[in-house]
């Protein structure tokens, strides 16, 4: 793999990426008002409380919106063109930027239900990606 871009955890975001490594999607939840937040924040943007717990998301939600890149802004994405980037609205509340995998770009629609799938980049890094939950047909 040549020159790929990886997340750069800092002291405050480390729990999230460490969670991903163990295939868990972790967020901060306010102990006072229950708001589940993203991006990482030392306080709750709803009530300004500093008290929070870390919760594990069930990893389900829907595609809020998406875009399809036809131009590579970085060489490591050239061979992936055209590729998608999506904003996932998780059932717990947070909006997370990711990719929808295992589907053709023309299958994408806003509001499609999705679930998390962890993509292991190496022993240390896993990225939370999403796949569309196909409706079971009887």
């Amino acid at each position, binding site marked *: 793999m040549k020159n*790929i*871009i*990886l*997340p*750069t955890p*800092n002291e405050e*975001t480390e729990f999230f990426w460490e969670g991903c490594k163990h295939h868990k999607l972790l967020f901060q939840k306010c102990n006072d008002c229950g708001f589940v937040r*993203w*991006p990482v924040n030392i306080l709750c943007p709803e009530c300004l409380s500093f008290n929070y717990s870390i919760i594990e998301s069930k990893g389900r939600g829907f595609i*809020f*919106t*998406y*875009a*399809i*890149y*036809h*131009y590579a*802004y*970085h060489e490591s*994405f050239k061979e*992936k063109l*055209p*590729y998608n*980037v999506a*904003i996932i609205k998780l059932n717990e509340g947070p*909006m*997370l*930027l*990711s*990719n929808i995998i295992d589907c053709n*770009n023309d299958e994408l*629609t*806003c*509001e499609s239900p999705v679930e998390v799938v962890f993509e292991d980049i190496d022993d240390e890094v896993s*990225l939370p*990606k999403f796949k569309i939950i196909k409706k079971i047909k009887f």
Partner: protein
Amino acid sequence: MIKNPLRGCSAIAGIGYTEQGKIANRTALSFHTEACANAIKDAGIKKDDIDGLFIYRHFNTRSNEPDITPYLVAQQLGIKPDYLSEEANCARSHLYNAVSLLYSGLCKYILISYADNALLSKRTFVDEATHGEPFGDVAAFGQFGLVSAYAMAARRAMFENGTGPNVWKHIAMSTRAWANLNPRAIMHRKVMSEDDYFNSKYIVEPLRLFDCALINDGGRACVITTTERAKDLKNSPAVILGIGQSNPSYDIHQSFYMTKNSGAKRASELAMHMAKVTHKDIDALQIYDCFTYTVDLTLSDYGFYDYGHGEEFFNDKKTYPGGRLPMNTSGGLLSEAYFMGLTQLTEGAIQLMGRAEERQLGVLNGTKKPNIVLCSDNGAALQTHNCTILGSIDTL
């Protein structure tokens, strides 16, 4: 009703242009200084009259150019202003600052400037986007820059209200038709048909190349002063009747206003209230068109048409040359040149000054002389918005 004392207290008195387009041998700083010097000259004042200098956000220069700061622009112009300011991350605060400082008397003549050598620097507007996550944390998923941010907003709007390329084509094509009348416009000699629009390649779908602003070298500046002072200067002033600003601030990954109720809504309500005008009073629109979708959202948030009803609005060609509601008469950011909100603001002013030559409203067939022109400015990924209502001296 008590008149807002800020209504009409200040005016644009001079405009500075530079060469623009692809220019092989100029630093970004050189465009700032040229645009500023030309604006001072156009206003008919002395450089030492300038006591306020604001520059728009600047982008990283090449390693062999100095970093651009308002200090350096002042130094190159040989001036020592009382007030210096540079916006960060595109918050469109210039006119709030300028009008407040002029009204309070802290400043008398204010210069506002934007310049870049984006083509020479091969800028792709990736590092300029502002997100809540560190760069690598979203770039790892292939998320880069502003085209994609607006593409995601546009996609959501297609889903929610049915807008799409059949609306955006009119924005691209009418803007281009205006550029064809403006010799300064980068796309002056290039006409755009509907086929040209649909055949332009996707950059980040659903946005095509012709949905995106130009990337160019050049600069733009203007001088703003009190209306009383402007009346004694050589140009007929473009009076600032109303201003409104709003900063919803949330980055696009967390945005809840990408399809309606963006900063444009509150900014326009504030501006129209101060200016004491309604939609029917507005003779021309200069709408910030970083992307066609931005115009679509802005016009709906401003109340010109309901969300998703752009086709009905644009189908009668009212925004094209000769139409009854001219829009982006210079060619805008899509087809004239990208100078952030100064492309719109200076075009609104030059039309009111009656100096727009071939594209002058009131001279061009089927148009009428404008008294009130609405200009918009927007920044980051819909995170900030300014609405400015300019009027001729007769509107005071």
